[in-house]
């Protein structure tokens, strides 16, 4: 019988711990257990056989750490081959009557993925692919990805399994005491991601004992539409009289297992500290249990690397501001590769309370696949909201879906055959919730009936690609009411009918409706309220539009979705503050003499500095404000720092305040030519180094002193730095390194810069560097802190 068919009908018993049993047989700390497949095959066969004899249906090969990062290719192949052969020998020798399967076991790579660690996502996929391909070659019957503590690495392994085999794939993760993965994912988020990738089963293993993992399992049972795996440790290891023991007995263990099988768990085994006795006890207790059927949950869910957002209970707000359409400053940021600007747009929307961020970087002049991919990974490095990948470029869509950490929204597909043929295979492969526009080759139907028909057609086509209804959210399209008086009515009817007749969720881009009208906000927010009342599940909207936000909070109050009206009251407070904000930002009398701005910068008051700059600009020329107020303030703080009367945090607070003032000046100068640059300064943390806090401090100060800083980020290869310096003909480059192990990369970068860009002066800094070190590796300048870098840059550029 094949595994999937068996799983549909039965409770599946997995095996238990291997490590503990190997230690009893002499495995030493630090020794690779995978080598025992070759060195001590009898021990491995004995352990596998003991599990089959105890009642396990599935034995996992002894290949937890068998990957290309730990073993050279030949040895890796020999290990996987031997591991499968050992499992097969055990199966042949066991006379136990139950169905028996062999799973290729895949544990974490041992590395943490970027941006937190140094393993690139595609490199991780390749590592897992090698092992999967070997497993397939030597006869694995299913793949079991286990003990994953990072959602991103889980995705890499799932993708590898999918691209290198047709075997059933199961994935289970190690959850901590907080009920989350080490990198933050909740059980629901893992259900969204894993099911999106098409797992046969998902669940928990390792990390904790059965009781501690019970709440996590219950959470998985609530959301999962596939069978759930329960494979915990025998409690926690304790040292008792110099020996290590686990604190949960086979009896107590099997009690919890039985309880959870009765609640719906379908695969059960054990991890660290469990032995064949544990499996035997579980089998004995549950042999007569009828397996509970696995019900599809039909929950439309998207996720980030921390949490899932489910459609249906509350209206979902999707922030629309990461989009260059009609935004000059945003276009400029995209063209200049100014990631920080995009990130601050994202964070600001998150602070306004959106649930999902739409990400659109479509501009004719750019390489959209690369820019979208970079935007998605940069956003996911700092923002934990699910993203909506918004592009009509299919190549860009695939690149972004591939590297996305979680289950994203995809904007969009429509009823045209060409669109569905392109988008649905991607949804099937990478997982996601697709936004489906109710239009097709004949355009947008004028009637609600027509739009519902297209929705039906889309659902039928999706099903043919294996994409479920729950993974589609319809956009019945809000058209301009000033052009067609019936437009809003038709859209609202379509929203209601798609929800009621098709049982699918809907969303709308709200603000289209008021296009061409004066005072658009009341029209938008009223339309929003009407749409919500007609069953709208989500809105793509501008979270800075206070009317829209208040409508959202008011709707939740009126629908009984906001207990004690708490969210509404909090939002109303913020709303009142925006409306009643004092017109005069200089609320102290000293402001009159024009030194208030200087003081605000010196004191590091960001918002106040921005407000005061705005005010000063009404009376004075931009350059006057810069030269007479901002620069002198910066200078006094800089000198204070050099004289050790001002400390680093204060220097930075002032720098941030000055930066916010400069931003105001910049927007006042838009179109009139910005403040002249003193020169281009290319800055980077060298290859292998992932700490960049110091580099970011230097960058901020250089910007304030009028340099154009091109920040290449962290872990940057020498070639990239040379290329940037050459392209910009930059007179200055700054390199930072934290540890002795990355100084060689700094030295190599300098060597390549001397060859490729001999004109460029090189400043180095970082915790490990000293003047001697800097001299030895051939730098022009060692700067002990950010101010020293600024002074040196000014000296070189003569400004």
């Amino acid at each position, binding site marked *: 019988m094949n595994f999937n068919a068996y799983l549909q009908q039965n409770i599946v018993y997995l095996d238990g711990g291997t490590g503990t049993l190997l230690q009893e047989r002499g495995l030493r*700390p630090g020794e690779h257990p995978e080598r025992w497949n070759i060195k001590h095959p009898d021990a491995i066969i004995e352990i596998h056989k003991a599990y089959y004899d105890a009642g396990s249906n599935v034995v996992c090969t002894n290949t937890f750490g068998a990957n290309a990062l730990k073993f050279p290719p030949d040895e890796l192949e020999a290990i996987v081959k031997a591991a499968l052969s050992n499992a097969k020998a055990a199966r042949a020798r066991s006379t136990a009557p139950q169905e028996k399967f062999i799973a290729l076991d895949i544990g974490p790579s041992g590395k943490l993925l970027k941006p937190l660690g140094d393993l690139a996502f595609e490199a991780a996929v390749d590592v897992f692919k090698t092992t999967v391909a070997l497993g397939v070659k030597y006869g694995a019957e299913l793949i079991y990805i286990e003990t994953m*503590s990072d959602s991103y690495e889980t995705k890499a392994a799932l993708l590898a399994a999918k691209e290198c085999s047709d075997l059933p794939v199961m994935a289970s993760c190690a959850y901590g005491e907080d009920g989350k993965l080490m990198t933050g994912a909740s059980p629901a988020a893992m259900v969204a991601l894993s099911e999106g990738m098409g797992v046969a089963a998902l669940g928990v293993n390792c990390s904790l004992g059965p009781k501690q993992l019970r709440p996590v399992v219950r959470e998985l049972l609530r959301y999962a539409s596939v069978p759930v795996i329960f494979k915990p440790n025998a409690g926690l290891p*304790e*040292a008792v009289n110099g020996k290590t023991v686990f604190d949960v007995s086979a009896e107590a263990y099997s009690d919890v297992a039985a309880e959870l099988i009765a609640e719906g768990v379908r695969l059960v085994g054990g991890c660290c500290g469990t032995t064949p006795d544990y499996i035997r006890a579980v089998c004995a207790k549950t042999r007569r249990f009828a397996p509970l059927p696995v019900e599809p949950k039909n929950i439309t869910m998207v996720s980030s690397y921390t949490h899932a957002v489910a459609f249906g209970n509350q209206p979902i707000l999707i922030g629309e501001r990461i989009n260059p359409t009609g935004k000059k400053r945003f276009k400029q940021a995209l063209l200049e590769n100014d990631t920080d600007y995009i990130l601050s747009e994202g964070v600001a929307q998150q602070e306004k309370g959106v649930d999902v961020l739409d990400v659109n970087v479509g501009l004719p002049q750019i390489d959209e696949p690369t820019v979208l991919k970079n935007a998605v990974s940069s956003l996911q490095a*700092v923002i934990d909201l699910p993203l909506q990948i918004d592009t009509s470029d299919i190549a860009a869509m695939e690149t972004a879906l591939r590297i996305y950490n979680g289950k994203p929204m995809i904007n969009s597909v429509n009823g045209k055959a060409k669109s569905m043929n392109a988008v649905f295979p991607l949804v099937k492969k990478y997982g996601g919730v697709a936004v489906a526009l109710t239009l097709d080759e004949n355009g947008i139907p004028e009637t609600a009936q027509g739009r519902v028909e297209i929705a039906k057609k889309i659902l039928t086509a999706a099903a043919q690609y294996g994409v479920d209804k729950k993974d589609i959210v319809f956009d019945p399209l809000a058209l301009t009411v000033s052009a067609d008086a019936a437009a809003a009515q038709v859209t609202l009817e379509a929203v209601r009918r798609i929800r009621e007749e098709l049982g699918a969720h809907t969303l709308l881009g709200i603000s289209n409706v008021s296009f061409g009208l004066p005072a658009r906000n009341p029209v938008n927010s009223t339309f929003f309220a009407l749409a919500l009342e007609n069953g709208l599940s989500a809105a793509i909207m501008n979270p800075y539009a206070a009317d829209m936000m208040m409508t959202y909070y008011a709707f939740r109050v009126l629908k009984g979705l906001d207990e004690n009206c708490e969210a509404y009251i909090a939002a109303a407070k913020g709303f009142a503050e925006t409306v009643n904000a004092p017109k005069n930002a200089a609320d102290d009398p000293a402001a009159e003499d024009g030194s208030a701005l200087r003081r605000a910068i010196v004191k590091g008051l960001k918002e106040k500095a921005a407000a005061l700059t705005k005010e000063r600009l009404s009376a004075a020329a931009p350059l006057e404000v810069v030269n007479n107020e901002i620069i002198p303030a910066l200078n006094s703080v800089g000198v204070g720092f050099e004289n050790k009367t001002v400390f680093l945090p204060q220097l930075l607070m002032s720098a941030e305040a000055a930066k916010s003032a400069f931003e105001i000046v910049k927007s006042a100068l838009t179109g009139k030519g910005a403040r002249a640059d003193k020169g281009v300064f290319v800055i980077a943390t060298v290859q292998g180094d992932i*700490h960049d806090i110091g580099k970011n401090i230097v960058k901020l100060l250089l910007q304030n002193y009028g340099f154009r800083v091109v920040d290449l980020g962290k872990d940057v290869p020498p070639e990239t730095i040379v290329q940037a310096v050459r392209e910009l003909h930059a007179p200055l480059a700054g390199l930072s390194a934290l540890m002795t192990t990355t100084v060689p990369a700094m030295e190599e970068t300098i060597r390549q810069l001397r060859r490729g860009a001999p004109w460029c002066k090189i400043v180095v800094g970082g915790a490990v560097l000293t003047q001697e070190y800097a001299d030895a590796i051939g730098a022009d300048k060692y700067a002990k802190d950010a101010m020293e870098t600024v002074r040196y840059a000014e000296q070189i550029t003569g400004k």
Partner: protein
Amino acid sequence: MVLIKTYDAPPMDEHEVFRYAGCKGDEASVRELLDGCKAETADVLTYKVCYLPLDVRVTDDFCDLGVFGVRSKHLARNLDGCAKAVVFAATVGVGIDRLIAKYSVLSPTKALLLDAIGTERIEALCNAFCDDAEKEYNLSARPRYSPGYGDLGLPFQKEIFSVLNCRKHIGLSLSDSLMMSPSKSVTAIVGLCETECGKPLRKCEACGNTECTFRSAL
């Protein structure tokens, strides 16, 4: 067999946070920002340690620790007189790294303060663990000794990671350039001796770098 411990948040020494952030003392102007940062970190910090007790035999500059041997004059001096030691890895988790990355973009001041908080937190966790180890084994602990101190090179990290299986036990991994992720993590060997074999040196006293910016007042 590697053992694992999870701790509640140890008490915070704010003076240390200010010191790591580059302030001489409690700076009023920084106070408000620091309180905000502390509130933001409270929910994301986790305090985890995995460790392995070892038997120690020191001969000249060679330390035989059972699971590994290491040639280091400075470590040998540190462990001299100890029959036991504990090798451990500790981390406060990835949450603070994410916050630091976020504020590196939005507010470098907050990033700096968060970084300082992270450093103080991991040191506090190590102190709590070492105090525990003293009690658990009823021995007196020497100052903990990490790869990168004195003549004990950073490559020794690989041995520690291999023996402790840090990734599996506490989610800690080592990059090719021997950096740890999460960044606010420590690996160390702490010697345990029978008597107060000479008052153990505390913190920076053991280190030869007297010019270090972060050298604490002795």
